[in-house]
């Protein structure tokens, strides 16, 4: 996807992107986070496992529903990636079984069923996120990290990332001493990003969470709105905070 309005100063190349996402895992202080991957297609499973191991995760694998449920109970993973259609036992059945046992481990559902109804069913059965096949591996990693570092329900009314401050009560934002005027949607976007600073947020995640759209619009809406927000947050003389990760999404980081 070509991004017409991404200024070169805060675009990252493909090589740098990997470093950022890898470092994101270490920043999160999750030493050897264990992920259970339940996927019956061995090639897909191989690719996903390789990528996640490379990013510093410990991976357990299961190729069938029943094996998956057993491992989910025995090896206590920090997160689960569950394919929707599995031999032996449906992915949703596994999740329902775990939720009935009061296991709260975050679950990312992978599925070839992309219809909105299917997605709703997946989330209703206890899944925390739903990713339709085929997906970009970056998208999968971003979502797993988002699940692992889900912001706790906090009563914090003031968000801070470096010089950036967001007052959730007064609905005001400022960077250092400079006040930032934000439209309601921009405020919501910045709030979401500040709660997940240092995390890669993909366009699809932003569309789902900030705009609440269940479909992907044709035009690069997210890019345009993000461009606006970045223009306001990163003034001409400020070091950039909102970074565009080419082809993947965006990261909000403290200026280095």
């Amino acid at each position, binding site marked *: 996807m070509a991004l017409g309005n991404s200024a070169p100063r805060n675009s990252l190349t493909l090589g740098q992107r990997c470093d950022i996402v890898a470092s994101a895992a270490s920043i999160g202080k999750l030493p050897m986070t264990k992920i259970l991957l339940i996927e019956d297609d061995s090639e897909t499973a191989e690719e996903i496992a390789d990528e996640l191991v490379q990013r510093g995760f410990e991976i357990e694998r299961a190729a069938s529903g029943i094996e998956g449920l057993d491992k989910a109970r025995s090896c206590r993973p920090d997160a689960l990636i569950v394919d929707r259609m599995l031999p032996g036992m449906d992915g949703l059945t596994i999740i329902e079984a775990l939720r009935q046992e009061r296991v709260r481990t975050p679950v990312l559902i992978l599925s070839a069923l992309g219809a909105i109804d299917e997605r709703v069913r997946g989330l209703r059965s206890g899944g925390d996120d739903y990713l339709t096949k085929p997906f970009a591996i970056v998208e999968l990693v971003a979502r797993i990290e988002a699940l692992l570092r889900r912001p706790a329900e906090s009563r914090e009314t003031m968000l801070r990332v470096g010089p950036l401050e967001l007052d959730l009560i007064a609905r005001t934002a400022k960077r250092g001493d400079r006040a930032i005027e934000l439209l309601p949607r921009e405020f919501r976007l910045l709030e979401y990003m500040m709660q997940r600073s240092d995390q890669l947020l993909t366009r699809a995640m932003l569309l789902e969470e900030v705009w609440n759209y269940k*479909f992907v619009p044709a035009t690069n809406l997210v890019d345009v709105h993000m*461009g606006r927000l970045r223009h306001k947050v990163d003034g001409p003389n400020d070091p950039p905070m909102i970074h565009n990760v080419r082809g993947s999404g965006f990261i909000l980081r403290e200026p280095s």
Partner: protein
Amino acid sequence: MNLPDFVRTTTFRWTSTAFAVCILLFSAFVYWEAASYMVAKMDAAISEESLAVAADTPDRQLAAIDDRLSEDPRRVKLAGMFGADGHRIAGNLESLPQGLPFNATVQTAHVVRVDQHGHEAMTVRAVARALPDGNILVIARHNGELKELAEVVARALLLALPFAAGLSLAIGAILSVRVQRRVAGLNALVRRILSGNLSERIPVLGLDHPFDKLATVANGMLDEIQVLVTEMAGVGNEIAHDLRTPLTRARVCLERGRANATTLAELQGVTDRAIGALDQSLTIITALLRITEIENSRGRANFSEVPLAELVQEVGDLYDPIAEDKQVTLHVTSEGDATVYCDRDLLFEAVMNLVDNAVKFTPAGGCINIASVHREGENIIRICDTGPGIGENERDVVMRRFYRSDKSRNTQGAGLGLTLVSAIMKLHGFRLALNTATGCVAEIICPLPST
């Protein structure tokens, strides 16, 4: 037993049975009508005779009875004069018939006839009259004629039955063979259609026959199916073509990259281009699945009253920055507080698609106006722009999947936006009107439910 096929048909059985029952009923009716006519005539004669005899002087009455009995070659007449105590004075009746009321109408009675042939019990029509001198006059008539009549009718029936049965069988056979022949023709035709010859139609004979009505309905159904199948085949081709384009790009990219790239950066560039092409084909698949999802959704579970002004404003807010980037002015105007009963997400998606198109095709310096308008009986969402518009000859085809105006070949997109909009319109019972008269105007017309 080896019966011909038509004998087993329902038409044949019903026609034959109905015919036989009709003949029986008809014969019974003829008998009943004739019998009641004869009885009425007989009763009138008896009554008249009894009055005539009673009117005579007592001494002539006995002679009259004798006269009457002597002029009776068929031996059907009966008469008797009885004393007040019931003893017989004259006539051929053995005794006063029991239960026969005096001076009443003619009735059926059981009597015993006494004459030179001896005693004979019989059923007759009779009337009894009490005479002024205390005697009782009985005039009766044997209804043997009725029996004869019944015999005649029965004989006629017996003679006619074999003929009638033959006739009914023949009619049943003709009718059933005719029906069978048409059904057989239809069977053969349906088989030909099943084997893929969708252009075949059931012949309509132009008679007001149930078969013709059925044929008309079935032909209509076939027309619809043929259109759908043709359309589907076309869509298949278009999908193949539109997917092949980006896939070819991806393949060429990768192939050339593999052969020619000398540095990691070059290889990454190639890979990025290939991924872009793959994403494009994915976009097409996603859009197609979305359209199918909407076309197949029947439920109105997510329907609610949605304020139009708010929806239009939200789309405006969403696209304002994009329009501004393109140096296009975007206005939102909304009238009143009209609401529309719809699935908000879907209507939003439809409006968004139209605005997306408008933004895409309006050149810099142009202007887009999104408005919600209330008109008699309907609410309208109107999107006007100063873009090149849709040509007169293109207005219908833009709704087709993958149709792209030549002008838009270089703009990115799946070419499915308007198809998606029209699927959403269909689900809601709304209309999409495209007008090219002044700039480009797209209208979503939402008829209000009639109250």
